[in-house]
């Protein structure tokens, strides 16, 4: 789709991400794409994928990173602040209200029953998200080792995350580099890659 894109104002960034936040039950990423690409046309499809690769790579919630990056790109720090506020403030207040309700009524048997059902579904949502990513991610056999090792270390052995990341992130990058070198024949432009 090659429709012309529209440059938003900070106010539009705020309302756009507010819509993402309030629609985004059980995950906001789907809505982030829908609002910024399809409804508001801030970005084209390919541009969205490119921006998302940064947002998924950087630490922190992907959609919040997207709000910051788009805000910065279109309107500087005022845009980033507007995107942040749109995405976070209303859900924060709602969550606070939920927290108060949980404190008062969380122990009622009825509430406990409902939460047991919702928690079982929420756990399933997380598992399916992991499985879907496993199928999409370009993971070669040697790189699977890193994923399995991460699961074993974090889920089974309960090692602290910092140590796990310090070992496995470099390992993954080295394996990827090794695989990449074998898989991709040297192209004329490949020589200028630099040290890392």
């Amino acid at each position, binding site marked *: 789709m090659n429709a012309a894109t529209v440059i938003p104002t900070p106010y539009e960034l705020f309302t756009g991400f507010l819509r993402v*936040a309030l629609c*985004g*039950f*059980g*995950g906001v990423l789907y809505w982030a794409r829908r609002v910024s690409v399809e409804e508001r046309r801030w970005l084209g499809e390919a541009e969205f994928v490119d921006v998302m690769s*940064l*947002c*998924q*790579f*950087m*630490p*922190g919630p992907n*959609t*919040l990173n997207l709000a910051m*990056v788009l805000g910065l*790109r279109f309107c500087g*720090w005022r845009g980033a602040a507007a995107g*942040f506020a749109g*995405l*976070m403030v*209303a*859900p*924060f207040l*709602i*969550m*606070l209200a*939920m927290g108060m309700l*949980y404190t008062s009524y969380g122990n009622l048997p009825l509430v406990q029953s*409902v*939460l*047991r*059902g919702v*928690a*079982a*579904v929420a*756990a*399933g*949502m*997380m*598992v*399916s998200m*992991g499985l879907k*990513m496993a199928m999409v991610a*370009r993971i070669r056999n040697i*790189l699977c080792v*890193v*994923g399995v090792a991460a*699961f074993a270390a*974090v*889920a089974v052995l*309960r090692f602290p*995350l*910092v140590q796990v*990341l310090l070992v496995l992130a470099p390992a*993954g990058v080295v*394996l*990827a*580099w090794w695989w*990449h070198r074998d898989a991709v024949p040297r192209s004329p432009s490949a020589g200028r*890659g630099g040290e890392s």
Partner: protein
Amino acid sequence: MDVLRQLALDFSVLSLLAVGGAPTVFPEMQRNVVEVHGWMSAAQFADLYAIAQASPGPNILVVCLIGWKVAGLAGALTATLAMVGPSCVLTCLVAGAWERFREARWREVVQLGVAPLTVGLMLSSGYLLTRSADESLAAYALTAGTVAVLMLTRVNPLWLIGAGALIGLAGLV
């Protein structure tokens, strides 16, 4: 160390470790909150996660609930700002440089190498949430059913959350 400072410290570290998004740090969050500090049980953690899933907005706001449970309003604000602040600043700082290295080979290699790690951590989150949320065979069946439906159809997950609430209300899990 007082509890607010502990919340701020824990979550700002997690903020910078959340490579690939919030779900990758749920295992560490649970380990800190339940095992290291003993602020709540694993089942309560799963409850809070369920509430966050059933509410609109980014799932990371489960930290708002954790902060609220541990230290009230000040806790909710501290935990939330600590969890999102550092990663936001870092992303803003890196955003410009990332554009410049669009074609660089090392960028692709790094992305490729980190992806399996993210997947492994996400599946760890799913595994741990399942273990702490599900107390009966029926609950495991509900989790498995959710996975099957989400893998095979494009149904809005909100319907499944509603169904889960009803199944729970009926006392089936």
